[in-house]
């Protein structure tokens, strides 16, 4: 098997005195969709913040393209081809829809995604491109957040709780768009509390509990009961 695109080896993360991650090991290979599942407080968000560089880590504990990035700043990591659709969308309120998308293109990496392509995927955004991002509906804001991440033409894209706070029909639409996004040669990590939806689109998964990986495997091999046990920490 080829070298992984992203590799976490014994990743620890701290907020002051509080340790949020304990020796997390993970590999993500090019072209995969990997789901990260786990209850609230399992460490999923810290994991995302560590990978993107918002939380400082030991340099060697995170490798991207075979290069240690644990000690890099978030903006340096972005230039290496890593993007995130953050939890709760977090658009820039004082920027218009189009400006939000353009901010995603700051790193200026070459690739398939352009403003025109985002607009053809989400035509409603082109209609509203001059509006403030705060005037959009939740689903439309999520489209902007996804488009913003794609415009950096990343090699790896992290989706953090993209279904949170959205109507089920909107979530369905967004998940329908995912395969098209992945097929452009991108690799994805998907953090979700909605287990079944996450497992449906992913090939492998890691389940987290209290800052550790409690179960990992191929989605097709795993039973519902095993996941439930790993998710809630129920021991037999």
């Amino acid at each position: 098997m080829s070298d992984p695109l992203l590799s976490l080896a014994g990743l620890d993360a701290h907020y002051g005195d509080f340790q949020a991650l304990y020796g997390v090991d993970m590999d993500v290979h090019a072209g995969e969709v990997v789901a990260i599942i786990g209850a609230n407080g399992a460490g999923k968000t810290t994991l995302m913040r560590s990978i993107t560089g918002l939380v400082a880590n030991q340099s060697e504990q995170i490798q991207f393209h075979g290069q240690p990035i644990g000690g890099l700043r978030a903006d340096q990591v972005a230039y290496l081809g890593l993007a995130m659709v953050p939890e709760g969308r977090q658009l820039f309120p004082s920027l218009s829809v189009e400006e939000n998308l353009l901010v995603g293109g700051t790193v200026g990496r070459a690739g398939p995604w352009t403003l025109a392509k985002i607009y053809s995927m989400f035509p409603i955004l082109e209609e509203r491109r001059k509006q403030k991002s705060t005037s959009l509906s939740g689903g439309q804001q999520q489209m902007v957040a996804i488009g913003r991440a794609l415009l950096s033409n990343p090699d790896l894209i992290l989706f953090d709780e993209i279904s949170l706070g959205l109507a089920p029909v909107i979530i369905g639409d967004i998940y329908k768009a995912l395969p098209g996004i992945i097929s452009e040669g991108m690799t994805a990590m998907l953090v979700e509390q909605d287990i079944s939806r996450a497992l449906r689109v992913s090939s492998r998964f890691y389940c987290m509990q209290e800052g550790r990986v409690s179960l990992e495997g191929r989605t097709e091999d795993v039973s519902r009961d095993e996941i439930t046990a790993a998710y809630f920490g129920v021991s037999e």
Partner: protein
Amino acid sequence: MMEWTNAIVQGILLGGLYALFAAGLSLIFGVMRLVNIAHGDLIVLAAYFGLTTTVLLGVHPFVALLFVVPVMAGLGYVLQRGLLNKTLGDDILPPLLVTFGLSVIIQNALLEGYTADPQKLNGGAIETASLQVGGLALGVLPLLTFGIAVAVIALLQWVFYATSLGRGFRAVSDNQDIAQIMGFNKSHIFGLAMALALAVTAIAGILLGMRTSFDPSVGGGRLIFGFEAVIIGGLGNLWGTLAGGVILGVAQTIGAKIDPGWQLLAGHIAFLVVLAVRPNGLFPRIDH
């Protein structure tokens, strides 16, 4: 009647200078929520840089801008990245006290280098030239100052709302974490914002030095005028800041018309009245 009209017109023109004092303050507050207590001393520092340049090179103060603007911008970048970035966070004390310390350092360094003697930049014939407009004698220098203020604010407005740098300023101001994930280096962006603010400060310092005499102790007063213009106009609104400067200037010239001792007092009172009646300023930004 004509005298009053004259006082108001002179006040409006004076407001341009105050808007220049205020623009840098407004800009750095907008981008990084930093209030720089040393802002007034930096204006005075720029005036002294202008003095040294004009004396050493024998050039007009306007030519000195070519030197002072880049020097102040560079100083701003270094100051921000080397010192002020370390003070930013949830606690308001460090930036406040560090810039306060900076203010004392600049003031005393200027005293050490230039003594307490009042100085003035020599603008030559332009200082006394005036235009006759409808029975009013308008000084060319105040007119020019006002025109420069309008141009500077228009330029800042353009940078903020029509360039990718301005997009970066606003993105970092909105959400630092996400802006960093999008590839903006926060420290660099803040450095650039301070560089831009001190470039404006350089212009303000040179114009101040041509208009009146200055000494190392006058920085505090300039900070207060700039601050009052920002609050009167409404936080985060650059054109509002110009309006705030004009209101402050008019209040001062009208006060001085009533009694020369009342010039500054009238300006402060105008500020306090606005604060009492419209705590968010007259033209608060509405997009948040």
